[in-house]
């Protein structure tokens, strides 16, 4: 499987925000071109630098692992929506950074 590696993803399983976080997090290893279509997202994956010796199958596995982790984080964030903000509001009431 030669470079570039391509992936076609369901945007129900992998929303664009999940894809974007993956692209950002892996930017020092792989450069990913994102093509968003109505019902899916196509990724074209290149090595970030010419001297990176990452085999293509490992690159695919790496991107998929990050996609799945960010999808799980997205799920957790939806399940806990509003709680983080409520916690910060309760914890930092009375705080005035700029005196």
């Amino acid at each position: 499987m030669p470079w570039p590696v391509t992936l076609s993803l369901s945007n129900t399983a992998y929303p664009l925000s999940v894809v974007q976080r993956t692209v950002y997090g892996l930017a020092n290893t792989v450069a990913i071109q994102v093509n968003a279509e109505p019902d899916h997202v196509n990724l074209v994956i290149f090595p970030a630098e010419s001297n990176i010796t990452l085999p293509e199958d490992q690159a695919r596995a790496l991107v998929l692992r990050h996609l799945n982790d960010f999808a799980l984080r997205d799920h957790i964030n939806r399940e806990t929506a509003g709680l983080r903000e409520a916690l910060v509001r309760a914890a930092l009431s009375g705080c005035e950074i700029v005196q």
Partner: protein
Amino acid sequence: MKLIATDSRTYRLLPLRFMRMNSKSERDILLTSDTGEYLHITDAQLQALSHYEVQPQTSFYKDLLARHFIYEPGRHDPLPEMAAQLRSRKDFLFQGPALHLFVVTLRCNHTCQYCQVSRAPLGGSAHDLSQADAWAAVDRLFESNASALTVEFQGGEPLLAFERVRQIVEWVTERNVTEQRDIQFVITTTLHHLTDDILDFAKQHRIQFSTSLDGPASLHNANRPTPSRDSYEKTVRGIEWVREKLGHDAVSALTTLTARSLDQPQAIIDEYVSQGFSSISLRPLSPYGFASKSAHRLDYPIERYLEFYKEALAYLLEINKQGIYLAESYASLLLKNILTPFSSGYVDLRSPAGAGTAALVYNYDGHVYPSDEARMLVEMGENGLRLGTVHQPLRELLASPVMEALLASGVAEALPGCSDCAMVPYCGADPVEHYARQGDPIGHRAFSAFCKKNLGLLKHLFGLLREGDDNVQRVLLSWLNRRSFSDVLYPGYRS
């Protein structure tokens, strides 16, 4: 068909983050809460937790409940407890700047290639803090509501402008008769220009000295050239002199690590042992001042620094096990963030960022900066991070557009990359460093030396805390509690 027993959802998730540690352990995933609690779990446990499949009678469920990763609606409201915990971790936000750095002169007798501060020639006073500016800076200092204040004198070499140091200490002391703050004075110096008069004054005002010791003579003198080529000898004589007059703990030392330092971790540590220090700070070179111009010769990739750090830490752990107390300062700060409900308070490990909120720098020319690093950028031709002048009230300085920009890019929990990172409760944001290295105060975490350093060190410490033997854990706890190794008990129950 699979029946999910917890379909009724006996629990709900609380905000949490996770990270793969790439360890060899089955429990490779680190789970952290916003309040700094953590658990090592398996992939299967993470999936079960996220999809409400953890059974209430299991110890895993009880751990999750106790550490505020989940809660049981209608049975217990975790928010007040968590809010109290988070408030403790962020207690530094409830007070004004506590660290006030006075740059009394840029003059210095050294010609260090990596100098982070930039220097001026020895003669003349064009690069000295004026009396009027010093007086105004003291006003700013007392406008902060912090109950404990640190007044630190920096340079150049501050002892070359000791009369200004003396004046500021006397003004602060006099004002403090009515202000009643807890004030600590520190002079950051090579100790080359000490006199009996300076030491008598330091004794009278309980002034601490912070010096630089880069390792054995050959390394120190190579890093810190002087015309007489005896920087090491003069610094060591100064250390002895301070201790003789003010006591052993009146002087501490910091290490600057150049590329040539990275090959000799044991020699550097041995030097600190032989000089009788109880802490060593193994900090990487900063991208500021002249250091940036000489980067091709002196700088190194952060990955090389991490290799050095791990080797040095292993050696430190060994000698501590033998009863020699020498703590690595940055590890001690990170351990406090990991293992206690409190923040270390260290400026670089704060979120929101400590620049300006925790520290202010009064430069020799009367300008005020949010951190020492910000004023170093000025000497590189970048003055965009100036808050104003010492003659503006503190409220005005802290409301400056620079502070707005720093705060907008200095909340780690909201930054790209950091917001998803399980280490964020223990880490900080450093917009000034990102501005210096990447030209953008937010920066890109995938290319950030700050991120690679902190992530590398935190992962290593979590590994030691989990996999290190009893004695490794005892050493780390001795650093955390500042107690000798022999005073720290073995973990767990023993017959």
